[in-house]
């Protein structure tokens, strides 16, 4: 069994079935892609995994623990980090503080030690700053660490979101359309980057993406959603040639 499994997950929104009996098995340290037309339920799936929604039925298991019903901050602390389709950084915090906030969620110091700057807290704070700077170096944003997140370019903001998610020391990273709005060369460097962090941090990566080039290039397994149902699941080659997938999503090629 993989790091993340979904067993018959359904999500209903007032009569609308956004996800219909979806099961997934994401293996450890794989790059797993989820594709499908708009409104297929991809982001809903992310919101279920991260605890924003509790599914109407079905089970979500992470590292063997059932996590549906667990609040989002606990899911995050268990090691699931994510980015957003529409970038959601803390715009009025510095680039460095954005990453540090991600670290703070998973550190120990309580309110008293944080208020009074007790020695343990200060030491921890130093480590956090150091680690945050390392993460920013990794995404080439170290030079801009004191800027407001607001002032970064679009591509830089996407990278900062990934750095912030990595601050949680996740075992599973969820990327929601990481290549959206990027040009061809940015996409190439993004693909290299995603592979690198998977290898260096021993991560499992689950990504939603519309760009087929990106998906087919980096994903080792792909699930296809259509109207909330999973219509295919397998390695890229298999999915690419799947009759149903071609019909509903990839389009019939001449």
């Amino acid at each position, binding site marked *: 069994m993989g790091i993340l499994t979904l067993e018959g997950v359904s999500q209903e929104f007032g009569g609308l079935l956004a996800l219909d009996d979806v099961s997934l098995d994401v293996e450890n340290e794989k790059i797993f892609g989820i594709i499908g037309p708009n409104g297929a339920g991809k982001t809903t799936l992310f919101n279920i995994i*991260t605890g*924003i929604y509790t599914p109407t039925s079905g089970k979500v298991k992470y590292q063997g623990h059932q996590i549906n019903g667990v*609040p*989002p*901050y606990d*899911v*995050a*602390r268990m090691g699931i*980090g*994510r980015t*957003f389709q529409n970038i*959601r*950084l*803390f*715009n*009025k*915090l510095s680039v460095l*503080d954005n990453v*540090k*906030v*991600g670290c*703070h*969620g*998973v550190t120990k*110091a309580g*309110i008293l030690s*944080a*208020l009074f*700057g007790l020695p343990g807290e200060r030491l921890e*704070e130093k480590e956090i700053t150091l680690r945050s700077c390392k993460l920013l170096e990794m995404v080439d944003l170290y030079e801009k660490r004191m800027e407001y997140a607001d002032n970064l370019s679009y591509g830089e903001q996407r990278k900062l979101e990934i750095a*912030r*998610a990595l*601050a*949680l020391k996740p075992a599973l990273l969820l990327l929601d359309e990481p290549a959206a709005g990027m040009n061809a060369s940015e996409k190439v460097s993004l693909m290299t980057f995603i592979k690198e962090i998977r290898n260096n941090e021993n991560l499992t990566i689950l990504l939603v993406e519309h760009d087929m080039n990106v998906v087919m290039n980096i994903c080792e397994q792909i699930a296809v959603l259509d109207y909330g149902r999973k219509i295919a699941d397998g390695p890229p080659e298999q999915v690419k040639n799947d009759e149903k997938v071609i019909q509903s999503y990839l389009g019939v090629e001449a």
Partner: protein
Amino acid sequence: MFIEQLVNGLTLGSTYALIALGYTMVYGIIQLINFAHGEIYMFGAFAGLLLVSVFGLNIFVALIGAMVFCMFLGMLIERIAYRPIRGKSSRLSALISAIGVSIFLSTLMALIRGTNTTRYPEIMKIHTYHLGSLDLSSLQIIILVVSALLMVGLQLLIQKTRIGKAMRACSQDLEAASLMGINANRVISYTFAIGSALAAAGGVMVGVYYNAVWPYMGTMAGLKAFAAAVLGGIGSIPGAMIGGLTLGVLEILGVAYLSSSYKDAIAFGILILVLILRPQGIMGKKITKKV
């Protein structure tokens, strides 16, 4: 004359600012106008009175005691009256819940203490310093200094500590913050605690300054401080400070140069003008929403 009124205005204004901070912080994080905030201020004034008169404590110790008491009161109110309905019903329900808590608390105090005004016992010898034509009482100096210290402390807390960072993150995007491992409920709870402690400090100092506390003192003070928060730009912490001081000064100058019967009309007249001319307030940012 003018300078003296200015100092009087700043004294009153700094207490408005202390209360306004609680409004603005809570609004910044959960977009709720906490109408029970004025009553927390009133409870702070009574807690201080109790500690001074019954337990015979030093006024500064009583001030800290009242702040601690109201921290817990604020967290309790949030836990009982706001959290259970948060996310499950509209913002309007939370607002109505806040009005309910406000009525409950002032009535509760009226039941306990009666509706008469109680005086603070004489807590210290009040000196008056004559600086040229300016008369400055030691009480005014204490109020100005304590308020300034509290506000600087708050700024340090918000800017430098991890709780402050978590609070800022939550005020910008509550959901994203919780997905980064921040326990948003806890951060909201701390926000109520800090805002309530500041209101309590305001309550004790106003009680001593005007030598009067009564169960309904929170209503007008709360509304004025709310006006101050809107004037400064609701959601903005420096805005609440500037708004409070501005409102206090304008109100006192209005009383001095126009008539004391215009006291309240000035505060609310300013509120109306701000809402018409600059709805985002002094420090607020105009937000153009993409449709």
